[in-house]
């Protein structure tokens, strides 16, 4: 698969659309972590995130012929499929009220009062943000996840989404404002 390392995602997507499975594999290598992190942020369940990541990649594989670039990166397409997959997941799990946040990897095992209090506060904040993400527009959500979870630069996000850097900055600003307000109201 090494010969595909020099190709950019759009070139890989073109090859993949023509049935080249190695190009598809190279694309998956690139997007595996960002897609998984996005799904984990929305589900907070490691096992479910693994299952959903698998579902997303198989869905993209089955629908790749329908991908149209329109100035956007293939990652934007993967994220759209991931978002819809997570929405379906929550529809199916609607009856489950309590979301288990105990598996978040940052949870401390030091059970001093201070740490316990901080962990509970953080878990409440995480739960509130998870709810608030539902209220963001699809673009705001993508920008926030790419920026703060996957550490893409504004330039990279602009290229991925086919937008200007200024538009990306505005989306980030509005998203943070909405998330902060939601958190303030919720806690």
């Amino acid at each position, binding site marked *: 698969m090494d010969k595909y390392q020099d190709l950019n995602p759009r070139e890989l997507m073109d090859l993949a659309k023509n049935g080249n499975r190695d190009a598809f594999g190279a694309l998956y290598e690139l997007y595996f972590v960002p897609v998984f992190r996005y799904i984990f942020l929305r589900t907070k369940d490691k096992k479910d*995130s693994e299952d959903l990541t698998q579902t997303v990649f198989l869905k993209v594989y089955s629908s790749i012929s329908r991908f149209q670039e329109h100035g956007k990166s293939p990652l934007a397409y993967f994220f759209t499929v991931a978002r819809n997959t997570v929405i379906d997941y929550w529809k199916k799990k609607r009856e489950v009220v309590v979301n288990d946040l105990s598996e978040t990897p940052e949870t401390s095992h030091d059970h001093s009062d201070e740490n316990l209090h901080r962990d509970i506060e953080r878990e409440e904040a995480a739960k509130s943000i998870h709810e608030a993400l539902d209220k963001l527009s699809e673009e705001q959500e993508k920008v926030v996840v790419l920026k703060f979870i996957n550490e893409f630069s504004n330039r990279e996000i602009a290229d991925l989404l086919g937008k200007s850097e200024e538009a990306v900055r505005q989306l980030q600003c509005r998203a943070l404002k909405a998330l*902060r307000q939601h958190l303030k109201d919720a806690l």
Partner: protein
Amino acid sequence: MNNNNNEKIEKIIEKILQLYDKGKTLSDMVRLFPEHQNEAKEIMRVLDVFQSGKKVVPPRELLSQILADIKGVTENEIYRLFI
């Protein structure tokens, strides 16, 4: 009053985003807003939740499994799984 507050929050967020891009830590950023510590802390709390998301790493075996699945089935078989 509300408009003033909105503008104030937007300015703080813009400034925080600039500092974030310069690699400042969350605690550094709070210290840089002595007059608006509460607002800054609220925004930091949002960023703090996202910071934890960066530590999440999926198992490599999952990717191998997905790639093996794709190699092992036809597009039509996968398509049928989702309709």
